[in-house]
């Protein structure tokens, strides 16, 4: 365990909350300590306070913040995770947006997309549904805090663990083996997905309000404190058009938390619909 006082922990976790909106209380403090230990070793620092000082004052602090981002963000993801939600978008959201798609593509945001498995999974489902033949169009924006993961997402080459929920047939059909055990997602699934860097807890440039019809933000809110949680939900409410859908992870809920949303139940999953009428 890293040597640290109460004050050391508070200073550092407050800094991380301010910078990234992420909280590290209770058992998550141990996880944070385990992830920071290699950084302390690499920087030849001896405790959390020294690391806090480094992040606050050292000329190399911005590089370290980038490195820290890679360490503390959860990159755990794989293809077709919580697939029932992807099916709900294809089977319910897409048909009911038919009229809208005569004027413009359906706009989808994959928030905290990590290395891209989520937006690409959705793209695969949408393309394979054959809806394009019926005139359906879509654009998928995908953002993440971690530049290295975004770079991996743009490369779209995956291996082992990413396929733990992907059957052999789908993998053969959608991916091309570029070297033993490494697979490149085929171009037809990649072309509708755009990646960009964004800190969901910070100022959010480049995205217009009311832009999106669907937002996927799964298994991220669990890392936010109540204030950060509320801020992010408000932001999603701004980004979604009225009637648009917000999909959260299975263990996340807006119960008693998101007054601008109402729950919508599909056959095997649920989502939250932005309340309000279109202007």
């Amino acid at each position, binding site marked *: 365990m890293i040597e640290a*006082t*109460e*004050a050391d*922990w508070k200073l550092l976790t407050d800094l991380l909350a301010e910078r990234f909106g992420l909280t590290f209380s209770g058992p998550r403090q141990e996880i944070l300590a385990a992830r920071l230990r290699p950084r302390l070793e690499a920087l*030849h620092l001896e405790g959390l*306070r*020294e690391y806090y*000082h480094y992040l606050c*004052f050292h*000329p190399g602090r911005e590089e370290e913040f980038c490195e820290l981002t890679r360490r503390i963000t959860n990159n755990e993801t794989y293809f077709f995770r919580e697939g029932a939600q992807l099916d709900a978008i294809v089977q319910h959201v897409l048909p009911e947006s038919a009229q809208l798609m005569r004027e413009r593509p359906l706009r989808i945001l994959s928030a905290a997309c990590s290395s891209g498995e989520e937006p690409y999974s959705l793209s695969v489902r949408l393309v394979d549904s054959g809806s394009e033949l019926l005139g359906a169009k879509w654009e998928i924006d995908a953002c993440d805090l971690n530049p290295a993961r975004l770079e991996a997402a743009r490369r779209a080459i995956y291996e082992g663990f990413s396929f733990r929920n992907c059957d052999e047939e789908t993998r053969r059909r959608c991916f091309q083996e570029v070297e033993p055990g490494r697979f490149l997602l085929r171009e037809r699934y990649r072309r509708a997905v755009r990646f960009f860097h964004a800190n969901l807890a910070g100022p959010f440039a480049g995205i217009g309000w009311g832009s999106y019809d669907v937002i996927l933000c799964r298994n991220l809110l669990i890392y936010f404190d109540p204030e950060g949680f509320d801020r992010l939900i408000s932001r999603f409410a701004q980004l979604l058009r009225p009637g648009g859908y917000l999909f959260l992870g299975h263990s996340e809920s807006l119960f008693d938390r998101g007054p601008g949303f109402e729950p919508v139940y599909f056959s095997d999953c649920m989502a939250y619909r932005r309340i309000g009428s279109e202007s």
Partner: protein
Amino acid sequence: MTPVPLPLASRLAALDRPEDHPERARLILHALGDPSPQVREVAIAWAARVLEPDVLIPLVANGSDAMLRNAAFAALERQGPYAMEAVEQAVTAADADLAMFACQVLGSIGADSSVAPLIAALDRSEVNVVQAAAEAVGRLRLREAVAPLVGLLQREPWLQLAAADALGAIGDPLAADALLALVPDTMVAEPALEALARIAASTAVPHLLGFLADPRNARLRGPLVRAAGASLTAASEGTTPPAHDLLAFGRSVEADHGEAGLWRFLADRLAGGDEPPGLVSILDTGDDRGQSRAGGETLRAAAILVLAGGIATLFPPLFKWAEARDGRAWVEPLARRYVECLAPLAESLLTHSDPGVRAGALWVLPPTVIGAARFRAALEDSAPGVRVAACRGIGATGDAGAARSLAALLDSASPEERLAAAEALTRLPQEAQLAYLAPRLEPSTDETVLLAVLGALALLHCPGLDERVLHLAGIATGQVRRSALRAVAAISGPRAEVMLLRALADRDPGLQVEALDLLVLRGSDRLGATLLAMLGVADSLRYHVIRALGRLGRADAVAPLKSLFSSAPLHERVEILTALARLGGDPARQFLRQCLDQSQPEIRRVAAQGLAAVAEPEDLDLLARLARDKDWVLRSEAAQALGRLGPGPARPVLLDLVRDLEPAVARTARAALAER
């Protein structure tokens, strides 16, 4: 007409008034029962800060408003030592509800002084009060309560549960017999066994083995194994039950390999299987025992029973755990303890069909039991994990006859094996080192081999190879140079020191820092003077030089660091103050005091942190002033310093800080008070 509640923001703003506002107390009391958790949380912090315990205590007995009661409870808990005296008095109140809640509060904030009122409460007629008092003495681990708690084991089931739990927390072996007497009882047997596992009384082992061997106790096997395992682990030589009792137990286990038997239960645990949850593990006890009851504890308890009972058919799954580093940490001490019973079976473990078992046995059985021939044979094993374990064993025995085989591994095996082989070779006699390692320190050697050898030499100095290591460090580049310098750091004498000092001027900044670290760790003679000279060069290394001076503890660095302070950039100023705190002494302390007057908040914070480490009794007034500072970090550092100094006059200041609005400050102050 029902009054319309104010919006949340207004209710929060209402609490944010000066401490001397006449309406303050009324508003806080009102807000303690606010429906919003956010408002209540703020009110609790303010209540702990400004309300006296006498005002809060009656609220915890409020039967009609649970929200208010819980909020008052939380405020008293936050007040901690400040409220203790008043809460101790409330334990004796005639009102049973008040006494019960006071016992509960005392359980979280009490101390040794709480023993008398709590023991008196154990004797009261109201079951709720007695139960709360039993829980409190358990949380406070008050050994004086053992006798009355043992008395409660004869009372109603809820009191038996509370008493068993408290006795387990206190851990006094005197309670073991009374708890054992509860084991055949179906209602409290499991809590009693969990308590016995925590007490770990060696005298309980024969009884526990008897219970385990009885098939009627099959549903209690998990807690029984944990209790017996913990008791056997704690037993020292003289108090271990007679070997024939343990071996008889082992034979009875071996006699039945059936699905429902104890052998199968132990085999499943050793295979890493989870045990079905029992009554106690389902109950939320609110402490950390849930974790300790997890598979690890049962696994280790099963392991010691298997070894103590000589249950040979279960040795292989046990030794398989030792293949990995984590497993070795707990299997190795057991193997040492039961080596006599293991020795006759060593050969069967070392030749077992499962490579994990072979590797585990090589790792944890004493080398004298394994023998040189078996180690050498294991170097030819088909499993890499077995070969790595064999390297370690050969290194431990210093068997020069295995040198050629080790060198072959070093040249061609996986990185892990190369490193293991190199480490083993550094432990062989010098002739073997010179014959097999020296040629592999040539600059033309394959880099992976070179890195493995240098990595091993950084761990263990081999004097016969010094010349080659120094030569290599002088001519190599990149990773090889870095590794060579680490090996150089293990070499004593001026040549190695000069080599490292020269590396401070390397073009690679990472290597400069590494060299500096190596010099500090090595404790070089000339380093201090060199570093002081380097303070004049304003480059990226100076930050590390300042830190190194602090770590070296050189008193003559104080003056140059102080004079550098005003012209240094902020990140270096922070490090100068940190270094001065490490160096200590009056001049450094005085400088830290002066820096508390600086306008930059971060400098004040670091100065306060430094002062917390070096403060003297004459700094008490200053620390008392810091304890009232607006910046919570300064208040926290003041608490830290006062805790370290510990004289009586600081107590009122700390009692004030335990009620600080900032929880981190309050907790630091509380810990400071507890230390004294």
